[in-house]
């Protein structure tokens, strides 16, 4: 870890995205182990669109830590590229594009990814979008660049959800993965915790305290329809979607202590899954839907266990440290992220399930609520700086770190949404 800290100190970029419209400030530190040099040109005529598309692409690529972004000025003639000149400047690839205002009010965003070595086009996209989706079009281009150059699906166009607390006002927000385009999903005078995205990204399950006790709801983000999924006697919490999207795992205290149950997304077909004498909570389905990882204090302190999706025998997964909570399993099922308390500090750890190798990814002291990016390459979590709660993102190898803060209030309970259709 010490070695890594020195690397982070090597580079610290403070970038305020999107100028006056920025809702969050993102601080980036650290770089990836193998940065690909890519030149990004200003798009021809991009001033016509409400968002500066090339700036958003650059910010996305820089934030990922996977690229060394070279500013290529503005290239207006995208069909006449000086490949060898860009190669000489150190760029392996070049991003160019154009924006045109269409008669119907939309914007035609075109982009090309060029290989400066092979002197050939690697990829291109052409999309006509309404003003509100110009930012999305930039994220989709960044996703394409990331995928074509690294072989890994980009997650720049995905969204996150989190809770913003200002005094007694609790707001469930949805925003782009970079914290921009923030939208209000739910406002309440009582706490909201544990948001969880449906696999199709159109609904969020969460725990609301509006009835003086924790109750699990599913809210359709598009229609605003809210469904009570679990309101049994006692506490109802910790919703997690099954990959099928038709059921959730929840933690209920209806039988006198907190245990894990599964329930249909419509609130029907409630079944007990775990069976212990102590606390079983924080269920998370594996990506294949076959297993549930969860936190249990059956051995004394909290540790992470795995059982079948309908219950059955539980196997202990974490053995280091006396306090491990909040399991999240990577999309490929190989890595477990969790929060471990060591020497009184609550910090983000990852465990390679095959090798049993554990790595600490944060050096803060009050970390919570980890969640994997849908491509498995980054983990977002809640942390605290001073008295303010903020969000942080770290690459799974621990090398690239970002911190997202807002101008006012606390942000917590982050959860990274899925790839969208």
């Amino acid at each position, binding site marked *: 870890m010490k070695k890594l800290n020195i690397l982070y100190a090597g580079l610290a970029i403070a970038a305020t995205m999107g100028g006056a419209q920025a809702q969050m400030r993102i601080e980036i530190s650290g770089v990836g182990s193998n940065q690909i040099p890519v030149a990004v040109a200003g798009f021809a005529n991009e001033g016509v669109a409400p968002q500066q598309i090339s700036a958003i692409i650059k910010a996305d690529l820089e934030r990922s830590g996977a690229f060394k972004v070279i500013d290529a000025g503005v290239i207006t003639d995208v069909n006449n590229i000086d490949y060898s000149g860009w190669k000489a400047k150190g760029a392996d690839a070049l991003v160019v594009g154009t924006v045109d205002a269409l008669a119907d009010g939309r914007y035609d965003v075109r982009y090309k990814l060029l290989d400066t070595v092979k002197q050939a086009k690697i990829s291109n996209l052409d999309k006509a979008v309404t003003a509100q989706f110009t930012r999305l079009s930039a994220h989709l281009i960044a996703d394409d660049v990331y995928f074509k150059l690294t072989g890994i699906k980009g997650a720049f166009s995905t969204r996150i959800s989190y809770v913003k607390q200002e005094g007694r006002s609790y707001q469930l927000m949805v925003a782009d993965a970079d914290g921009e385009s923030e939208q209000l999903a739910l406002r309440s005078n009582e706490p909201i*915790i544990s948001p969880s995205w449906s696999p199709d990204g159109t609904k969020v399950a969460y725990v609301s305290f509006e009835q003086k006790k*924790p109750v699990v709801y599913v809210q359709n983000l598009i229609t605003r329809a809210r469904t009570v999924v679990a309101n049994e006697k*006692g506490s109802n919490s910790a919703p997690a979607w099954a990959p099928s999207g038709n059921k959730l795992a929840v933690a209920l*205290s209806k039988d006198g*202590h907190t245990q894990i149950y599964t329930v249909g997304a419509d609130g029907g077909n409630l079944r007990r899954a775990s069976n212990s004498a102590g606390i079983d*909570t924080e269920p998370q389905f594996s990506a294949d839907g076959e297993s549930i990882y969860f*936190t249990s204090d059956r051995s004394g302190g909290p540790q992470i266990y795995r059982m079948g999706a309908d219950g059955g025998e539980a196997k202990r997964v974490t053995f280091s440290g006396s306090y491990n*909570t*909040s399991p999240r399993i990577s999309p490929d099922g190989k890595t477990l992220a969790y929060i471990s308390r060591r020497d009184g500090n609550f910090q983000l750890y990852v465990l390679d399930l095959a090798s049993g190798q554990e790595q600490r990814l944060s050096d803060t002291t009050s970390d*919570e609520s980890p969640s994997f990016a849908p491509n498995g390459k980054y983990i977002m979590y809640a942390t605290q700086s001073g008295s303010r709660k903020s969000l942080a993102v770290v690459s799974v190898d621990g090398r690239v770190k970002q911190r997202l803060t807002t101008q006012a209030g606390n942000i917590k309970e982050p959860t990274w949404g899925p790839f969208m259709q």
Partner: protein
Amino acid sequence: MRKHLAFIVATAAILSACSTPVKVSEPAPVVERPVDKAVTPQADTRTVAPVETKSLDPLDDPKGVLANRSVYFDFDSYVVRADGKPVVENHSAYLNKNKSRSILIQGNTDERGGSEYNLALGQKRAEAVRKSMAALGVPESQIEAVSLGKEKPKATGSNEEAWAQNRRADIVYK
């Protein structure tokens, strides 16, 4: 006052009668004055002086034993302490007498650790109070044990004093 004055006047008259020779046939000059019938002005007949009766429900007595609705817990403990027992007993007695009343027991924790695990720990505190009440004969139908975890701290500081305030279960009447 008026009567006293009348008595003094009468006594003075008798004393003076003793010291001064007077005609026996002449009665002492005592004037019986009527007790003041307050001749109040017209407006005062519309005065309304408020009277408050004592609440019949001891739950509403801010100085009664039922006003204490919090049970505190030690660090990492889920056992009702000695100082919490009277709270549990008093509310159990009330609930046993008032079968139509029911309560939420809201368990709370200090701020350290994650939301969901703290919610489960707060639940253990609420369940400890619920079990103590059930042992005193309160039917399950009148009690619901729930948890607010670390989400609704009573004290907001990040020190032992605040944490001790937040390791608590509250009795809330529905």
